[in-house]
């Protein structure tokens, strides 16, 4: 780098790092110190909690060396995977900011700075972000896990504990780097292969898919990482990148846990130690191969990132971003006229709802997170189901549908209260004619069509495979009725203009969330049982019950008194009490 470029490079790197915090990671209007404290506090408390929760058992027991060597493989797998997935999730959440975007180009292009300096500064900021997240996520587990393990295996010397701490830190940070680079590689290659115009169209969907996949994987991690050592590193577990990094871990420590000197043991302890040592010795020859795989994975993904970044830089010598994207008229523009021929406000709500749920970043990402939770629940539910063809359908199999659309609809109920663009609400405010119910009906129809229906279609294939297409189609129909009931129930207490009014947080949400979650799971299970009874022909009353609930909710919604004057800019109580709002 030229000497003259160093000053701008440092300034730009700092600017991009601040942008990650202020514009992308946090709310654009949020207070930086407060939000940093919240994010930092969350990361520290979460990692502390996870490491204490998973490792506390070591402090309260004495383990044989062979037993410790095998049982700790599960924890190592958990920490490596968690580091990889959390860092990947941060990268996916920062998707648009990982490269120079339109906003950067507009502001920075007129300045007398070489494009190469801008790109290098952006890369440095991205690298700093990745390193920061990787260190923050892994620092506490790297200390706590080996430290508590030393209580269970007192034969370990202090230097061996230190070696374990350093190895854990280096391996988990490497795994985190792999996760971070994988997301960047996907983004850069998508950009290189699709070109700027197509990439702009497809990018939000790739990001959403990435968040759904990574989020689901994080939620499934506790289940996947139990008894890793005992169950054996074979099958699909062996193919996971996390397993490769666990291999590096064991190679780096030389598996010294299994080789520690034995203390006096009872006969039973001796047998147990021998059995575990045998298991570990069976795994031991796999570690060099896994190490080579991990090195190849990390090197490969780094190479992919470098090549794609260079390719993009070569193809776009100017940092200017492609001009406006022509979207073309909506293919479903006729739908609101068909569904709501008489209500213009409902048509407005329908179109506005579809646009926000599919295109607005905040709302889309919230729904993606909900989809991740839903898919994790689906996988947990389906894991105990016999999916062989012609197997008898069970309530557990049928529950995957309400679990998935239920998660999405609950998230939809939350995002209804989040304004799509608060500064733009004046346009709706001035055109508003007080048709809250009609507008909300339009938005609810948009949710049914764009959220619930795709969720029902996604789970259609496994149910059709297990129980036949006719059964699955009938189940899908019942699912639509169920989704309509859930939507009616969720919308019953909603008094604002969706996506428009100021967001006011619910005060008691933290206290109520576990109760709501429990009620949701019980509700989904009961609904699945009812569906099973209806579909297997033993309950015609079930259909009547469902329709009666739907009609009752509809009547309650129509009869319910609404607030006459909508306050689009309602002030949070705390601000009013402090006199911070005129």
């Amino acid at each position, binding site marked *: 780098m030229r000497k003259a470029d160093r000053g701008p490079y440092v300034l730009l790197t700092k600017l991009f790092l601040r942008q990650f915090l202020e514009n992308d990671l946090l709310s654009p209007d949020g207070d930086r110190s407060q939000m940093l404290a919240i994010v930092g506090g969350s990361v520290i408390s979460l990692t502390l909690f996870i490491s204490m929760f998973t490792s506390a058992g070591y402090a309260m027991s004495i383990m044989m060396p062979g037993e410790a060597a095998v049982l700790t493989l599960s924890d190592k797998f958990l920490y490596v995977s968690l580091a990889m997935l959390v860092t990947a999730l941060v990268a996916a959440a920062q998707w648009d900011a990982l490269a120079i975007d339109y906003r950067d180009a507009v502001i920075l292009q007129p300045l007398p700075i070489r494009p190469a300096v801008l790109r290098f500064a952006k890369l440095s900021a991205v690298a700093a972000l990745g390193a920061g997240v990787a260190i923050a996520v892994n620092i506490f587990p790297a200390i706590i896990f080996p430290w508590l393990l030393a209580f269970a295996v007192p034969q370990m010397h202090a230097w061996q504990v230190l070696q374990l701490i350093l190895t854990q830190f280096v391996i988990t940070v490497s795994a985190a780097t792999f996760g971070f680079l994988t997301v960047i590689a996907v983004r850069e290659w998508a950009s290189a292969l699709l070109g700027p115009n197509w990439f702009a169209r497809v990018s939000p969907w790739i990001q959403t898919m990435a968040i759904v996949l990574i989020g689901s994987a994080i939620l499934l991690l506790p289940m996947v990482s139990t008894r890793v050592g005992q169950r054996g590193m074979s099958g699909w577990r062996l193919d996971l990148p996390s397993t490769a990094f666990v291999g590096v871990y064991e190679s780096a420590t030389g598996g010294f846990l299994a080789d520690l000197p034995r203390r006096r043991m009872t006969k039973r302890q001796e047998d147990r130690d021998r059995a575990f040592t045998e298991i570990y010795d069976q795994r031991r020859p796999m570690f060099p191969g896994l190490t080579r795989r991990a090195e190849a994975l990390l090197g490969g993904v780094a190479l992919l990132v470098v090549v794609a970044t260079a390719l993009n830089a070569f193809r776009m010598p100017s940092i200017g971003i492609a001009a406006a*994207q022509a979207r073309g008229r*909506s293919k479903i523009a006729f739908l609101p006229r068909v569904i709501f021929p008489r209500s213009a*406000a409902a*048509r*407005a709500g329908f179109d506005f709802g579809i646009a926000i749920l599919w295109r607005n970043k905040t709302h889309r990402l919230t729904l993606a997170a909900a989809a991740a939770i839903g898919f994790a629940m689906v996988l947990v539910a389906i894991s105990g189901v016999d999916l062989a063809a012609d197997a008898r359908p069970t309530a557990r199999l049928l529950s995957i549908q309400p679990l998935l659309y239920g998660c999405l609809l609950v998230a939809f109920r939350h995002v209804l209260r989040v304004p799509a663009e608060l500064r*733009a609400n*004046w346009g709706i405010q*001035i*055109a508003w004619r007080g048709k809250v119910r009609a507008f909300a009906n339009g938005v609810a129809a948009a949710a049914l069509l764009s959220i619930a229906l795709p969720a029902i279609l996604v789970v259609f294939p496994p149910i059709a495979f297990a129980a036949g297409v006719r059964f699955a189609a009938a189940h899908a129909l019942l699912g639509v009725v169920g989704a309509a009931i859930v939507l009616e129930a969720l919308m019953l207490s909603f008094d604002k203009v969706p996506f428009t009014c100021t967001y006011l947080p619910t005060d008691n949400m933290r206290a109520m969330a576990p109760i709501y979650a429990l009620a949701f799971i019980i509700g989904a299970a009961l609904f699945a049982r009812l569906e099973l009874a209806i579909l297997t022909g033993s309950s015609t009353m079930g259909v009547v019950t469902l329709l009666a609930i739907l009609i009752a909710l509809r009547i309650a919604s129509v009869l319910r008194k609404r607030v006459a004057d909508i306050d689009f800019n309602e002030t949070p109580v705390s601000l009013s009490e402090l006199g911070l709002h005129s």
Partner: protein
Amino acid sequence: MSDLVARKLTKRFSGTRVVNDVNLTVRPGEVVGYLGPNGSGKTTTARMLGGLLEPSGGVVEYDGVDIRADVIAFHRHVGYVPEEPYLYPFLSGREYLQLVGRLRELPESLLTEKIDGFLRLFNLSVAADQSIGSYSKGMRQKIVISAALLHDPAVVIFDEPETGLDVATTLMLRHLVRTLATRGKAILYSSHILEVVERVCDRVIVLHKGNVVADDSIARLRALSSSTSLEGVFSQLVIREDPESIARDLADLAATGS
């Protein structure tokens, strides 16, 4: 057609008076210019007149009725063009106009006809289906103007509407404002471009630090202040420092060290 009247209109933000006892009347067929330097309270007044901001004191009346009695009914008669054209960036121009038109409950066929017409006349047909996020400020301003006129309002409030518009559109906008006035619309035109106000407005209200310092026809204001132009009148009323000397100081500061 009815008058839009503000009586003793006041707005305080955290105890600071931004608009202070403003009285004004906008009559059908009349274009009232609302002038003032930056921070004088023009936008705040416009938002209160449009029923978008609650006044701290005073009332806004339309057709002799306090607009707070039924803001929604008042909004049926109002078109508002804000200073900053904040719009939903993920909607296209056409979708935004459709949203506004449907909320105003315009018949679907009429709405389509009007939207196509506005987009064509504002040269936005090509960009009609692109995201507003990719629009220039001028393009967004054209969408905002279209949205304000979609329902043929009786009162139109323009708050510095020429911001970001090209020369041809600015000229067209001046003619549009005059044409709307001749068709009986009551128009409040807030701006700090004196030349535009001088050409477009019948009457001028000058605001300084939240207070009305002049309210009369341009001809009478010229006569009273013995000036030949609105610029001269404005200078006498609100400009306390010598602009030439400040300009000289700024140029000197820019040249410091070079």
